[in-house]
């Protein structure tokens, strides 16, 4: 965010009445602009700011049939219940595991693929690989989950057939039926869906690296790996750090769709994350207060991580987000 934009709202109406008058006179001349923007400010107020008030229901014993001011306030009781609840702690463990896998795997694979693409010298081949690798990004998770569960199925799924043909396993494995495979399957699915798309930013950053650096390195006798290690990777470092900070802020946003769509009774112990917990308690069981408390917990942790990562980057003298 630009610093000027984070500054306060217009400070124009000041003490002098003349100034206030002038401010309103100018504004009335701009009534077309006002009419074009203010309705949408009202819209965003209703749809994005009003729900923030909904956070209060985490501190209540919310009953939907009562009005806003008739609710019973219970303080932190919902949070206390949350942390003594085994299923919440398990969901928290799953969320953290998925978050770490997603972060590490997502970064490593995207950077590696971007570097490999950057080293391709046949322009046509490079373009073709890029176009094809973007493809899974454009399909919905519903379609992706269908494709993945077909590939993993026990009757004729390609994964089992391939592994059996290679002699790695001797009978088909029900991949989505064994809980502790789920994190790995999720990580692989996310890589399959987004690795190509995630290379875009890195490839854009690589075009900014001065080609003469590569030429000079080559004259000095650096080989491919050395050039990647000493020119390409340092060139990417600022982008990597910024993306890392942004992703740390979102780390608990492990998504909802793949877990929900590929989860089932057999792998629920490993596939349920915070979002599913909120959905289950909130929408299915109608315990709005507890579900909101879980949601708030997630947001607060995200903010702490975002600011923590940012100040760490500052202390290390690296690029930072704000």
């Amino acid at each position, binding site marked *: 965010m630009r610093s000027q934009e984070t500054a306060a709202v217009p400070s124009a109406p000041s003490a002098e009445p003349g100034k206030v008058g002038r401010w309103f006179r100018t504004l009335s001349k701009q009534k077309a602009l006002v009419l074009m923007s203010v309705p949408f400010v009202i819209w965003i107020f209703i749809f994005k700011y*009003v*729900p923030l008030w909904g956070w209060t229901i985490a501190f209540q014993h919310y009953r939907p049939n009562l009005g806003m001011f008739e609710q019973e306030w219970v303080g932190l009781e919902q949070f206390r219940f949350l942390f003594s609840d085994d299923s919440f702690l398990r969901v928290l463990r799953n969320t953290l595991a998925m978050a770490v896998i997603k972060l590490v795997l997502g970064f490593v694979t995207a950077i590696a693929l971007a570097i490999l693409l950057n080293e391709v010298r046949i322009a046509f081949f490079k373009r073709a690989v890029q176009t094809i690798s973007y493809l899974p990004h454009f399909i919905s998770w519903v379609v992706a989950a269908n494709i993945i569960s077909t590939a993993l199925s026990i009757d004729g799924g390609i994964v089992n057939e391939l592994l059996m043909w290679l002699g790695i396993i001797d009978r088909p494995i029900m991949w989505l039926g064994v809980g502790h495979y789920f994190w790995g399957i999720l990580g692989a699915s996310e890589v399959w869906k987004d690795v190509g798309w995630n290379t875009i930013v890195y490839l854009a950053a690589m075009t900014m690296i001065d080609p003469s650096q590569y030429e000079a390195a080559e004259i000095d006798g650096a080989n491919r790996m050395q050039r990647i290690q000493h020119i390409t990777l340092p060139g990417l470092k600022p982008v990597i750090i910024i993306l890392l900070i942004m992703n740390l802020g979102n780390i608990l946003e492990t998504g909802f769709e793949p877990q929900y769509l590929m989860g089932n009774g057999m792998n629920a112990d490993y596939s349920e994350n915070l979002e599913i917990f909120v959905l289950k308690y909130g929408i299915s069981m109608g315990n709005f207060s507890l579900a909101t408390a879980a949601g708030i917990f997630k947001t607060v942790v995200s903010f702490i991580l975002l600011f923590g990562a940012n100040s760490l980057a500052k202390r290390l003298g690296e690029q930072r987000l704000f």
Partner: protein
Amino acid sequence: MATPAAQQVGAGKKPEKPRKVYKRFQSPGDRLFDLFNFIFLSLLVIFTLYPFLNTLAVSLNNANDSIRGGIYLLPRDFSLDNYKYVFQEATIFHATLVSILRTVIGTIVTVFCSAMVAYTISRPEFLLRRFVTVTFILTMYLNGGLIPNYLLMRDLDLIGSFWVYIVPGIIGVFNMIVIRSFIEGLPEGIIESARIDGAGEFRTFMQIVIPLALPALATVALFTGVFQWNSWFDVFLYNSEKANLSTLQYELMKMLANSNSNSSMTSASAFANSANASANFVTPTSIRATMTIVASLPMIIVYPFLQKYFVKGMTVGGVKG
């Protein structure tokens, strides 16, 4: 976020020339690297494409023949019965219409509204400019969460209505910033001269800004279109009891849920066992494959042609956001 790194990416000096493929002596190590790189990337292509091609082959194969298994890249017993069946089924036909409708209406409304606000906050003399900008940008970091949003939709009486697909998303803040950056990059004189010629703000916006900002609007339209077409969660959350507001993605999601639950007489198989189905010889597996293709085909056909817009939007948004 005009981050330092992002500025480096965006505003950093442009390479004077596209990076040359400089002719040079290739060491054996270099060639080995190229070979492995080629093999690895080819494997990646196969890994990405195979599941789609396999699904396509199953959807184009006779359903009874598919039960035998062993279909990989090509249909063994070619037949269009699966597609005929899917489109004769009233539920799916209707869901396809709703999907198209929400994609078209949602995209037009979002692009138009986002562009209009983007235009007002690109005008340097607009007194409320900073207020409007801050109000919108803050929402990128603040989120009420699932339950408060659900309660809001309930209170606004949007549950069980088509408009719950459109109204909550009429402005994407990210989209708005992409468009604003683009408008700010237009030559200032163009907008000024329209104003001197006596055009009002709205007319300037409609007749000057929209045509000039088309590349940015195309980017935003594409992001929104893909999002609308692929959405299923809002259907599930708000309209799961309204059969006439179901979408293609949601119908497919229900089929997946049924096949996951593994019970012998689920509604997907009931679906396939209905009178119509037995006449046409379809199975849950082949219907699911067919639906998967139908639900993804529009995106798969469209995106290669629009790839440059997507990539541009991605880098502009990431850089200037």
